[in-house]
């Protein structure tokens, strides 16, 4: 499988992360060391200001019998947080979601916007999570959020300052302005 990774300016992607396939990081993304993103079935496009922490795994998994399809894009919205050790194979991800530590979201789950998947929760059945759903507790109960999630921009600002001091980064290699001027 050929790796084709596009990184927009202002995003911080650590070199020690595992990236396979066709992946696009929009500006302002932060990828911590030893995070894993695998685009097996088609390209992954990650929206602005997403955080992917250690041991988090985002997979665009190949269904049995299917093959690589350029048009089958897994589009992940902006402002999502993938915390330590989460494993996300969802078919669609909107904006401002939080996937807490060690949660599992199976393929066929469609996550809209503003959702929080609690720590250690496993969602395997194909379903659609409505906006602002919170999945919590031992029985993985679902309810609607009473108040909106706080934004993660402060954390991103901090990480963008600190991570370059300690890690080797993959260089941003795609500038939308330059790309336009070439055309």
């Amino acid at each position: 499988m050929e790796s084709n990774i596009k990184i927009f300016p202002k995003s911080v992607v650590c070199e020690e992360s595992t990236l396979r396939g066709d992946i696009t990081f929009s500006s302002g993304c932060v990828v911590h060391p030893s995070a894993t993103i695998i685009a097996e079935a088609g390209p992954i496009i990650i929206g602005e200001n997403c955080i992917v922490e250690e041991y988090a795994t985002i997979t665009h998994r190949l269904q049995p019998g299917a093959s690589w399809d350029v048009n089958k894009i897994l589009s992940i919205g902006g402002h999502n947080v993938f915390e330590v050790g989460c494993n996300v194979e969802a078919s669609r991800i909107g904006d401002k979601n939080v996937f807490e530590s060690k949660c599992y979201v199976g393929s066929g789950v469609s996550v809209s916007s503003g959702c929080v998947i609690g720590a250690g929760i496993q969602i395997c059945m194909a379903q659609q999570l409505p906006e602002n759903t919170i999945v919590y507790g031992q029985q993985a109960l679902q309810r609607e959020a009473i108040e909106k999630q706080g934004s993660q921009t402060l954390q991103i600002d901090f990480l963008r300052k600190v991570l370059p001091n300690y890690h080797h980064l993959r260089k941003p290699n795609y500038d939308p302005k330059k790309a336009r001027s070439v055309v």
Partner: protein
Amino acid sequence: MEIADTYYSKDEYVETASGNKVSRHTVLCGSQNIVLNGKVIVQSGAIIRGDLANVRAGRYCVISKNSVIRPPYKQFSKGIAFFPMHIGDHVFIGEGAVVSAATIGSFVYIGKNAIIGRRCTLKDCCVIEDGAVLPPETNVSSYMRYTAKGTIEGGQGNPYFVPAAMQDEMVNYTKSFYEHFVRTPAPAS
């Protein structure tokens, strides 16, 4: 009870002058901010995020495979701050645990795949069961057991959940773990 020997290959682990045994397959970020006070075992796949804030671990700690030690953060109106993390002596952190506690006392046992939320405080001699999930800012007092169900049980003088001799048991356990974590003997040639 004696623990069986665990062997590691010479190439895999580095032993420091103070007796720390650190695997080469770990991710120690910001190593200048990580203090291991001696005889600490850090097994392969463990991640310690010293780049976010200082991390201190006392003597005879065991940080098992694939666990993540990550200093907690708190959001203020003006930006966020990561707080330094302190781990006491004789602390065992199980495989795959995610620890974001503010402080961990001494003689603490954290089970496999436990998740310790941001800014939790774990006092001396407490037990976190395997797979337990602690919400952020939880306090677990001394001699308490945080179960996988999410309840806090026990208390001082109640030996059904945490043994009364927890301190001695953890000292023995971590010491013998260290002593039985030995290099594979070179094949006699």
